[in-house]
């Protein structure tokens, strides 16, 4: 299986604050990796480095240029970034995912609009193309931002805490969708909620300053302890949840 990118003893820092240390990490085609770890452990920083928003302090990030360029990465940021009351339609938001492939002066072609329509249908948003975000539910909003991330047909999809703004009702739909997308792109999903994601991912990486890769989706307490990777599990009363494995 061909790799998409590789980090070689990569470190990243904000000023003197060393957030990622000596990371060796390889992502292949058709991977579906959950990135877990405590808050402030460097999960989002890892995404920033891949997106080119933060230059490595040392070490290297190598793209397999035959398969992956900076323009073929799709990104779903945490919910808080866009203004939901902004006068911009679902179609226009999804189209903005194409800006990475365009110059600052380009408009959108009829072809681009066709692509947007396809994505809108694929994500079950038909009939909402002319709506603004404040008319949508949390789950629909999330699919709009997912649409923006995938309209450019990326080879790698980066998701930052997608569980944060989704109602539990939409959660399964959403992960189901990701499983479909995984047939044509690798996915790297940051989450602190390991309980929810573990049944959907193929493998996981634990990030807590350093990065430990675990090539299956079964996570034991021993793994977590060994990696120094504390996580929090929260259940809400009667909400059904899965216990993955009992442990002494």
């Amino acid at each position, binding site marked *: 299986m061909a790799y998409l990118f590789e980090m070689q003893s990569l470190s990243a820092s904000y000023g003197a604050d060393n957030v990622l240390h000596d990371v060796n990490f390889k992502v292949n085609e058709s991977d579906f990796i959950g990135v877990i770890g405590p808050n402030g452990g460097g999960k989002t920083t890892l995404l920033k480095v891949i*997106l080119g*928003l933060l230059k490595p302090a040392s070490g290297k990030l190598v793209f397999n240029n035959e398969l992956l360029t900076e323009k073929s990465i799709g*990104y779903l*940021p945490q919910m808080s*970034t*866009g*203004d939901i009351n*902004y*006068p*911009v*339609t679902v179609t*226009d*938001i999804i*189209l*903005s995912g194409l*800006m*990475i492939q*365009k110059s*600052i*002066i*380009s*408009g*959108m072609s009829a072809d681009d609009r066709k692509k947007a329509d396809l994505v809108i249908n694929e994500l079950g948003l038909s009939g909402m193309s*002319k709506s*603004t975000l404040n008319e949508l539910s949390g789950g629909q909003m999330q699919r709009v931002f997912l649409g*923006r991330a995938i309209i450019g047909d990326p080879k790698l999809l980066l998701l930052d805490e997608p569980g944060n703004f989704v109602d539990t009702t939409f959660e399964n739909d959403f992960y189901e969708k990701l499983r479909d997308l995984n047939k044509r792109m690798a996915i790297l999903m940051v989450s602190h909620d390991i309980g929810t994601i573990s049944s959907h991912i193929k493998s996981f990486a634990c990030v807590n300053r350093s990065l430990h890769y675990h090539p299956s989706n079964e996570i034991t307490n021993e793994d977590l302890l060994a990696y120094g990777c504390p996580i929090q599990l929260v259940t809400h009363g009667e909400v059904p949840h899965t216990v993955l494995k009992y442990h002494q």
Partner: protein
Amino acid sequence: MGANIFQYDFIIKGLLGAVFASITAGLAGTYVVSKRMVFLSGGITHASFGGIGIGYFIGINPVIGAAVFGIMSALGVEYLSVKQKIREDSAIGILWAFGMAIGIIFIYLTPGYTPNLMSYLFGSILTVTNADIMALGIMSVILILYFGIFYRTILYISFDEVFARTYSSYVDIFKYITTSLIALTIVLNIRMAGVVLVISLLTIPPNIAMLFTKVYFKIVVWSVIAGFIGTATGYTISYFAGIPVGATIIFTLVIIWVIVKGIVYLVKKISKQKK
């Protein structure tokens, strides 16, 4: 005959002023309202009064002084809030009053002829010069070109700056250019509506448009149309009734807002009943 030529000139000036004011205010105003920068724009407006005062004092065109002050205060707020970690609304409040204070001090210190303060505070078409109209016309062309050429880029940076940074390294440049152009738009419209009222010229038309459309581009178009109707009507009423033009324009715009709001409400009610 002489009176007729004077009147003719007066009408042309008013008409062109209304066209250019509504184009510039519609384009800048839609951006300001969408991005929730109304308070910042109010701050820029009042801070630019400092430039008017200094302009009088040292004997240059007050509009040039106002333009310098307007742009500097816009960038100053950004500097104070981002670099110095002062709350943005506090930074705006400080520059707002500081600009007004400087303006009043320097106008007071200006020897001899005391300029007509009222015309700057509340607007007066009588003091609008051909050069002012021409400046507004040039500004209209610049804004149409700027927003036309970079439409998608400006829209997406304004909607979601964090995401825009993932694909563009021009985010800050565009923000500074757009804010500076808005400051210039405000300053050039001060002659029409005055320091106190110009912010409404930017904010009321987009709010009229937003009553019935939510597509950014359409808001711009309808803002310009609503702005023109408001300014032209206000101008005419002010001429015949002999009342200040800025106040009349803003009054007319608010009336239009109320009427459109009522129509939208009725249309919704009727279409609901049909269902």
